[in-house]
């Protein structure tokens, strides 16, 4: 009873009935991760290329200085050349590590000294500036620098080409070390990106979840438009949802108005039928006719009860989503209610006993709805009690809650029926012989739902039923 079948709790389960496309969240996360992976690889490559370039540039500048020093070590005296390899050349080159160094000096196309295998650059350098190039020597890749110097040899200005080459092991080692670090950096970046993309996807999809939550937490009769603040991207969705809610509410209110009108139009002629039948029953002598008249009256009674309950139900439905809330003093409300029900109880010789706290018990609610709900509970107790029974009403305050308990000694409710009595037009298995519409408890449940209250029925110890209706205090 406290968790009616149509309560908000069942909404997520109902999602299963919706056709599900690809999850937006999963899609977002995949996209984030792909972007992160791409970024990590790019980062790695960029660092790697930059490191290569930097290492190469460092080697080039050493090579340039060494080549220059080498070229300055060449002295020409008439027809004699003397190459004095300056010690700075070797010390400079040894700074690069365990690399081997090769050189070649070419005069007029002839190798004067050094490795003949060391290739000169394709374009012979001019103007004293070194040219850098890659080549290989005996199958080992080397980086080389070459420059041309003009010397006075044998009485003529002659160009001499110098080439200096170095293997690239040192450079490769530096580049590898940097690349390894770049690799770790890339992996680290990606690993960080995983939780970040999860968080980002959740943050982006958060507002959708909030709206869904807000809508699903609503009571079954709550047809107010959705007022949650949403990002502009969600606005069309909310507008469509609100449009739908508006149409639903219109349809709803038309139905309720129609039911109320119909019930109203049924009642007056029904009163005449009943009263006529009562008069006829007084006057009739024939047993057969009396039996038939009794049936007429019983049917009229049944019909009028249904009409009343339909109207009450229409009232509950039309008001529970409207905010007609104000402070309601339950003690006074119950006083009035009991006074108005007492004659009905007296007719069946039922005594109503009623206990309330001395101080006022104020809740925030719709007085009409609360009275309708409490009247239905009391009406049930009266209807299902046996003559001479007592019905006890208790108004109590415990913590932040006011609760009204109605205890009867009637035929009680079968355990199996407890949960199934809330839906409309459901009645217990053991009350088929008593007139009723099956709308009473539905109404009570709806009123309690719309007031954040609780309603439950329990079998009473020693026979009968306990109905508890509780509401948060104002």
């Amino acid at each position: 009873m406290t968790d009616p079948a149509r309560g908000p709790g069942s909404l997520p389960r109902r999602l299963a009935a919706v056709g599900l496309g690809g999850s937006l969240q999963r899609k977002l996360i995949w996209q984030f991760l792909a972007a992160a992976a791409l970024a990590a690889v790019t980062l790695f490559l960029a660092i790697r290329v930059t490191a290569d370039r930097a290492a190469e540039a460092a080697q080039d500048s050493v090579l340039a200085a060494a080549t220059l020093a080498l070229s300055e070590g060449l002295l020409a005296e008439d027809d004699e050349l003397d190459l004095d390899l300056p010690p700075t050349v070797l010390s400079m080159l040894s700074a690069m590590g365990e690399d081997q160094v090769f050189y070649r000096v070419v005069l007029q196309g002839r190798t004067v000294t050094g490795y003949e295998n060391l290739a000169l650059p394709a374009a012979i350098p001019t103007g004293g500036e070194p040219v850098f190039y890659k080549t290989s020597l005996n199958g080992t890749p080397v980086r080389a620098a070459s420059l041309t110097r003009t010397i006075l040899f044998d009485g003529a200005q002659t160009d001499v080409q110098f080439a200096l080459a170095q293997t690239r092991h040192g450079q490769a080692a530096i580049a590898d070390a940097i690349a390894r670090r770049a690799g770790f950096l890339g992996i680290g970046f990606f690993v960080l990106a995983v939780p970040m993309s999860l968080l980002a996807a959740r943050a982006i999809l958060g507002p959708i979840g909030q709206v869904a939550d807000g809508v699903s937490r609503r009571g079954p009769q709550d047809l107010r438009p959705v007022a949650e603040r949403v990002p502009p991207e969600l606005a069309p969705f909310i507008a469509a949802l609100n449009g739908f809610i508006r149409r639903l509410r219109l349809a709803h209110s038309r139905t309720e108005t129609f039911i109320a009108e119909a019930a109203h139009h049924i009642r007056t002629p029904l009163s005449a039928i009943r009263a006529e039948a009562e008069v006829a029953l007084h006057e009739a002598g024939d047993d057969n006719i009396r039996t038939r008249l009794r049936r007429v009256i019983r049917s009229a009674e049944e019909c009028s009860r249904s009409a009343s309950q339909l109207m009450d139900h229409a009232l509950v439905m039309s008001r529970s989503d409207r905010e007609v809330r104000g402070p309601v003093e339950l003690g006074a409300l119950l006083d009035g209610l009991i006074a108005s029900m007492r004659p009905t109880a007296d007719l069946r010789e039922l005594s109503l006993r009623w206990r309330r706290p001395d101080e006022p018990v104020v809740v925030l609610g719709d007085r009409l709805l609360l009275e309708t709900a409490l009247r239905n509970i009391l009406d049930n107790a009266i209807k299902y009690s046996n003559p001479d029974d007592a019905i006890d009403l208790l108004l109590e305050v415990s913590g932040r809650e006011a609760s009204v308990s109605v205890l009867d000694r009637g035929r009680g409710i079968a355990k199996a029926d407890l949960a199934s009595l809330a839906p409309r037009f459901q009645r217990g298995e053991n009350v088929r012989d008593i007139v009723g519409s099956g709308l009473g408890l539905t109404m009570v449940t709806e009123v309690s739902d719309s007031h954040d209250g609780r309603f439950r029925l329990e079998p009473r110890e020693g026979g009968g039923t306990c109905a508890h209706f509780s509401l948060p205090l104002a």
Partner: protein
Amino acid sequence: MRYLLVEDAVELAESVKDLLRLGGHAVDWSASLAEARDCLGGASYDLILLDIALPDGDGRRFLSELRRQGNATPVIMMTARSAVSDRIDALDGGADDYLTKPFDPAELEARARAVLRRRGGAASSTRQLADLSFDPLTATLTVAGDPRELRNREMRLFEVLIGAPNCIFSKDQLCDRLFSFAESVTENAIEVYVARLRRKLEGSCVRIETVRGLGYRLTLP
């Protein structure tokens, strides 16, 4: 008791009038507020049965007008409309009670009695019979100066029997008067109440006699 019935639905008014007369009351009927004003100008009533929707106005407005003029006649409102909201309106407007159409005549009777009891009684509701007096309003039976309180069904049973002393009422007839048609009761249920009433009548010369096969009757010495 004298009732004023203000109701515009003719069929309903006719049958309610008949019902009240069967219950031993005098009834005047007005089909509009104007007629009701005329009646109230010429006679005094124990109780007014007032419909809410009348052709020449709203019964609730008529009631507050009545109260403003200082007329304190008890009023029971009748309506076919939504029970709770009208009830609150009617009671706030000075009505003594409220009935939703269609109503059980027994309930009307009970409510009328409750209203009159609250208001301090109608002119003279006490009936004398041999050595006992009976006040249906307070549900008291006085046997030779000894007051005895009757419970609701005992009182209604006695009311039926005292309405026609020496007349035989079948169990069936009595059941119809005592139980609502919405309840399912056996004819034997009446025996319980007859037995209780007999105990309350002890010491009186008035007795409830069982007429075998026919029912019960109230006998005087």
